[in-house]
């Protein structure tokens, strides 16, 4: 008997039927995988999904953090207060999302603004982590846009850390695998929205198809503009091909106001060079060198010591021995240009 496949979730609060349903996120839906070039073409194209975080509606309550901890069953440490509201103080392998708080005295309006941004994986269309990852299949991208870390394939090298333009992945200290927000791929697979979006009390976090989220954002931006935020806009950075986690910002012209959200993120040229040309050119160079050496060895005459050389050596040593016997002291000194 086949179990019915779960529907694709289109809202954060999607409530699929409660009976068990088969996953709707299949291995064949992977469109890109780290260190794997020749993936078979997917049989179907899932609708692109996105999580939209409306910073202007967020009250910084950390329900998303709490939901994230609960759903993913992570165990972050009880840290100490260091004079800020961020707890834990940074993303960790046990804390995939984090409210970041910025006190901004707006020089134009002279109003204080407390900008609160939920940090976490942006699920780039062009993921730097996936580009950088050396372990085949450790990072995958599904055709719905979710970028997921497959821990079974992860080797914990940390290349994804260098690859990510948003400083997101964290390597687990004991499990030695890279961890980050999965966009709740395990929930999405069975027709539910991400845990954080479901928990968000003000619906500052919403989830749905990317098109719907963009439309929703436009409505919110219009509202913000009416409230005097003329530069309100959507953060869907094209430098990484757009993202599947997007922000509505009151100050879309200055994303970096929001706890250093990159103004124009893209995969670093260094990373691209390293994982692009360098990889192949380097391999080719090494290959050519090795093959060249072998060819030379096979084709060219070896550099062999001749009988003549042996004789000359014999003579040199014998001659020197004679001299040493006669002039023990002088012979110790080297003799330039002696035959």
């Amino acid at each position, binding site marked *: 008997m086949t179990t019915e496949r779960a529907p694709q979730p289109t809202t954060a609060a999607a409530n699929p039927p409660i009976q068990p349903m088969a996953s709707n996120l299949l291995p064949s839906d992977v469109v890109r995988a780290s260190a794997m070039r020749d993936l078979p073409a997917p049989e179907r194209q899932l609708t692109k999904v996105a999580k939209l975080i409306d910073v*202007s*509606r*967020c*009250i*910084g*309550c*950390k*329900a998303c*953090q*709490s939901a994230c*901890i*609960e759903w993913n069953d992570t*165990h*972050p*440490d*009880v*840290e*100490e*207060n*260091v*004079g*800020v*509201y961020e*707890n*834990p103080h940074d993303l960790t392998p046990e*804390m995939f999302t984090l409210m970041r708080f910025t*006190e901004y*005295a707006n020089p134009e309006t002279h*109003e*204080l*603004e*407390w*900008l*609160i941004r939920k940090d976490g994986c942006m699920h780039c269309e062009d993921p730097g982590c996936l580009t950088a990852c050396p372990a085949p299949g450790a990072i995958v991208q599904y055709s719905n846009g979710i970028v997921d870390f497959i821990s079974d394939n992860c080797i914990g090298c940390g290349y994804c850390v260098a690859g990510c333009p948003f400083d997101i992945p964290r390597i687990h200290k004991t499990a030695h695998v890279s961890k980050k927000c999965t966009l709740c791929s395990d929930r999405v697979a069975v027709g539910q929205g991400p845990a954080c979006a479901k928990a968000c*009390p*003000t*619906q*500052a976090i919403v989830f749905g198809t990317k098109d719907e989220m963009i439309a929703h954002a436009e409505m*919110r931006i219009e*509202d913000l503009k*009416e*409230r005097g935020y003329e530069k309100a806009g959507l953060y869907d950075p094209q430098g990484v091909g757009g993202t599947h986690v997007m922000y509505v910002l009151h100050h879309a012209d200055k994303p970096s106001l929001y706890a250093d959200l990159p103004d124009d993120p893209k995969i670093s040229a260094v990373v691209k060079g390293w994982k692009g040309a360098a990889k192949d050119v380097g391999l080719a160079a090494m290959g050519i060198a090795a093959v060249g050496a072998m060819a030379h060895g096979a084709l060219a005459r070896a550099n062999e010591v001749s009988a003549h050389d042996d004789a000359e050596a014999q003579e040199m040593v014998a001659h020197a021995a004679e001299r040493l016997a006669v002039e023990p002291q002088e012979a110790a000194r080297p003799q330039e240009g002696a035959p």
Partner: protein
Amino acid sequence: MTNSWTDIKNTDLVVVMGGNAAEAHPCGFKWVTEAKQRRGAKLIVVDPRFTRTASVSDYYAPIRPGSDIAFLMGVIRWCIANDKVQWDYVRNYTNMAYLVREEFGWSDGMFTGYNEETRSYDQSSWEYQIGEDGYVLTDETLENPRCVWNLLKAHVDVYTPEFVERICGTPKDRFLKVCEMIGECASPTKTMTSMYALGWTQHSKGSQNIRGMAMLQLLLGNIGVAGGGMNALRGHSNIQGLTDVGLMSNLIPGYLAIPTEREPDFETYMSTRANKPLRPNQMSYWQNYRKFMVSFLKAMWGPAATAENGWGYEWLPKLDIAQYDGLRMFDMMSKGEVNVYFCQGFNPLLSFPNRGKLTEAFGKLKLLVVMDPLATETAAFWENHGIYNDVDPSKIQTEVLELPTTCFAEDEGATVNSGRWLQWHWAGATPPGESQTDVWIMSNIFLRLRELYRKEGGKAPEPILNLTWDYADPEDPTAAELAKELNGRALTDVPDPNDPTKLLLQAGKQVSSFGQLRDDGTTMGACWIYAGCFTEAGNMMARRDNEDPSGMGVYQNWSFAWPANRRVLYNRASCDLDGNPWDPERKLIAWDGAKWAGPDIPDIAVTAKPREVGPFIMNPEGVSRFFSRRLMRDGPFPTHMEPFESPVANPLNPEMRGNPVARMFPGDVAQLGDRSEFPLVATSYRLTEHFHYWTKHNKVNAVLQPEFFVEISEELAAERGIAKGGRVRVWSKRGEVWAKAVVTKRIRPLICDGQTVHVVGIPIHWGFKGAARKGFGPNTLGPFVGDANIETPEFKAYLVNIEPAEGSATS
């Protein structure tokens, strides 16, 4: 709440003052975001701190803790001066035209009748002029200088924007901007909602803060209308239920009063509760008091309560003083006047002020019984935890019994939310270990006690021996059994009063509303306002139909709202005098020519004709009150009073300290500090990451906010050499705490009365038990002072000092 959480989406302007809804009520706050999104509503935050609510507000104004009355009276003055008054509403639905007795007056910040000896007012002058017909004298022309309107205008006259700035530290331009935004809601088609919480109640004049806003809402015509109202955001998930069922020393369920010694029998008790209408045709609904009281007494003592014995009235305890509130109990305890204390779901060692006094008080008990799902600090008050609980256990002889109880997720029952919704919930988990429900524990104590009385007798055994206890399992009454009892049922057949040949209710049937309760002993009902929650149709509280055909957020078939499943109180006032909604787009009810009908349950007799019966049926006047008569101990109008510990003197009367009639015991006066020693204003509050002192026991919450801290401005930090994340010592006249310092732009120094006032913010959530780091609470520092009317401790404004402490910054 007069309205409900879901109704907030109907508003045009949200004023969060005396609260921090986004932070302390994040789930309910979603309706504010709904209003912003649906209606383009604006959000104003007035708070000493730029809170998380302020972070999503449209406008923010700072205010000095404890100066809210001045601000609110200032707004009322501005609205009157700028004609921002919904005249039709004010004229017809308030007592503005009523004449007040000539003797009433005020000067030097005090009203007539003050007695310094008793620290109370003789309130006899705070009353209307009553005509020969027994009705209040009025002057519809508003020309009589003794009419409420003229008295109000005179009363608020001093609260100019300059005066507000001087008292509150709110810059004048910000104050005026707030006034303008609020003033727009005087339009009949624009409403403002007030969301407040303990930021207003935890003052020595907390009730008057709320009165101030209620008066402003009346002025704007916003009481009883959709998207309006006075919305108290209750601090616990079921604290509304606690007050509803009368868990106060002076109340019995349904806001009926516990008798006093001066009321030895039932008829004496009832004689002051006739509630005769003060204007013609008015309903004065409290005229039904006797029905509710008799039904309550029948619920208590069943067949033993008879007309002959005053329905068992004499078995009720009689108060010798006004009330035994928390502050008084702990004061008595500290004097050794209490032997045994049952502490049920309560952690006073962290939640009541002047912790030193509390520790001393508990140490004088013979027995302390703590019923709680968690290991509370109160139960461990005798344990030494270094600086966090510096006591000597060898000196404490109190025996402590801990009875572990279930928590809300482990048992069944209803919790009452701020919007008065009784929402049924079911057990989601099995109680751990030996824990039992509170009901099981109380039942077993009762049954053993009753057995002792039976065997050994004793003084006045009747209240115990006669108590009705007809539950299927006497040791463990079910939540449904208790709910049915609160709802009430017919004890014998109840005839229809209009047609005695018909039966209104058959014996044994649940009543469907409090209208069916009787004063002849034929019905019982333990809490009249809950009538209708569990009827013959079943458990109304368990309903979960989220259909809302009107789109007004009424949700008539979702749970049950008291009274009578009404979602907006006073909703008759949402219509004009002829019964048409002020705003047709936001109709709650309307007069259809024959009756009142609409999405909500009308808060008036459905056939009461417009222009005859006033909308405020609980008042004998039928209208609402700008002048509150004798209902408030500290005055019929709110007047500015400084906190007991204040950095500035009261400009209305520099000699006056705090609220002259507030709850204050003589022994605590010596423990008040002044500005010379303690120049900083402290205010306490909650953080979103925690719920009181519960969630520090939960690892996840502990992760999200791990350690006790205080918040100070960058200016104060610089002045005192305090580093961000550094350790500080904060002390008051009553104690000291150590905390981490959060140095922030969100708290700014205020200029009040020409001097700089710094605010120190002290969140509440830490103690010496649980998963989070050990810490303190503001109650170590707070003064043992309570509100004049409801005795809530003055946690929101008192004086402290601060200095850097050993242990360097960690950042």
